[in-house]
Structure formats: structure tokens, C-alpha cells
């Protein structure tokens, strides 16, 4: 069982307390009506599936209840870092 660091509880907690919530840093367009069909389809369905690090959302559903972001290695399952929702991906400029 993996431990995942909850950036709100600021502690490592068992993975069973968490739920994955898909890719991180995908913004819902503020005015969806102005998006093209292709843009909207991309927003809905197109996701990176890298071998290596991925930014994804998790929710500490059976803990503090918060959604947060994590950088995880899809090969090793290693969580490099977790950070609060709204914070930029580490290593990038906001």
C-alpha cells in the first residue's frame, strides 16, 4: 500500500484514503460556448499518457476531503511531490 503525502494534512497517509481524479492543470474554459468542437473535445477527452512523470489530481476523500495535485512517476509509482490545488506545477512558472 502506497503512502501519499496530503499537502493539506501535511502527512503521509495510506493510499486507500485517496481517489485519483484524473489529469491536473486542465482548466475548464471560462466561456465554453466560444470553444471550437475540436478544443472542447480536447478538453473532454485528450490526455497525456506519458511513461514517466505525470501531473495528476488526487482527492483525500477519506481524510480531509481536499483535492490536490501530485507529480507521479507512472513507471515506479513514486510520488515526487504533492501540492495544493491552484498552485503551479513545481518547476514551472505560474
Amino acid at each position, binding site marked *: *500500500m502506497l503512502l501519499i503525502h496530503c499537502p*493539506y494534512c501535511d502527512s503521509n497517509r*495510506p493510499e486507500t*484514503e485517496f481517489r485519483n481524479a484524473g489529469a491536473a492543470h486542465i482548466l475548464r474554459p471560462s466561456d465554453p460556448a466560444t470553444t471550437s468542437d475540436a478544443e472542447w473535445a480536447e478538453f473532454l477527452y485528450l490526455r497525456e499518457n506519458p511513461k514517466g512523470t505525470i501531473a495528476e489530481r488526487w482527492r483525500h476523500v*477519506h481524510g*480531509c*476531503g481536499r483535492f490536490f495535485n501530485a507529480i507521479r512517476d507512472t513507471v515506479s509509482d513514486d510520488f515526487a511531490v504533492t501540492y495544493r490545488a491552484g498552485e503551479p506545477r513545481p518547476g514551472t512558472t505560474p
Partner: protein
Amino acid sequence: MAKTLMAEPPKSKPRLPNDAIAWITAAPPLARFIFRGSPEAEAAAGSAYGLAFPKALNRAASIGERGKPGARVALRIGPDELLLIVPIAEGKAVQTALETATAAHPHSLVDISDRHTGFALEGPHAADLINAGCPLDLDERAFPVGMVTRTLLHKAEIVLWRMGPTLFRVEVWRSFAPYVEALLEEAAHDFL
């Protein structure tokens, strides 16, 4: 706040095979609320509540004895989510007082008195019994007295609050309570 039409008799101890392991004591009927709101609303509510809400996540504040007049419990189970527990007879008054005090600040106060049932688990093996189904580190260094958190006991979500080295209080959604108590009783066989 609900008036008790049909009293639920508290379960008598011991519920577990052996007092030397731990025992379960059902909580009396209690009034419970979930308070969510801005820090300003929290501060105002805390004053009216007579007990400042704990600032840190996963920490408990309490005064008085469970079910006795004046008893107040505030458990911060989410960054903006507090579980408040007071004697059933004071529920209505507390609700009114909090709403009045926080009228100027956006917030949510919801009566969930019957959403949960609660019980205390106390005894030398209390932590071990919980660890039969809960993966958290319950060593006092990792889970000190005064810590509270939502977590899982097997497949049921619980709110686990350490009140003493060998005393825990558990709050659980009503329909999961029989499952949770049965699991603890089953786990007690490991200490016979």
C-alpha cells in the same frame, strides 16, 4: 434538533469479549453539526460556541464531559470543515446562537445529529483493535492525544479521535455503525 420520540438505549458494555482488551461504550444521543465557512465566520462561531475552534487540521478541541450540560466538542476534519458535538438538549440553542453570531459572514451550519452514531473504544488494546482495520500509525508519536481525522476502518469511513493514550472516540455514519462495531468485536478475538 430532533425531539427524541423513541429513545435508543445506549448499548451496555462490555461489547467485546474481554475487558482486558478494550470495551465499547455507545454515545448517548448527541446533537451534531457540520460548520463550514470563512475564517471570519469560524472566529465568530467559535466565540458563540464557547470554545474556540481548533486552527490546525485534524485537531480536536473540547470542554466538559460527553453528554453532560455545557460539553462542547469541535473537530477540524477538513480545512474548512468542523464537526461540532454538543449535548442533545442544547442542540437547538447552540444552532440558534451560532446562526446569530455568524449572520454577517457567509457560512454553512447543517444539523447532522442523526447522520452519525458515536462510541468510545477504551482499553489497553484499543489502538491495536483499530489497527486491525486501519492502516494509520497509531503510535502516540504519530497520532497524539487530541488528534482527530477521517480515515477508513476496513471499508467504512470513520472519524477517529484520540482522547487519551488508550481512549478513542469513533464517529461513523449511521448505516456503517453495525459493520464497524462488528469488525472491532471480531478483531478482539486476536487478543484472547
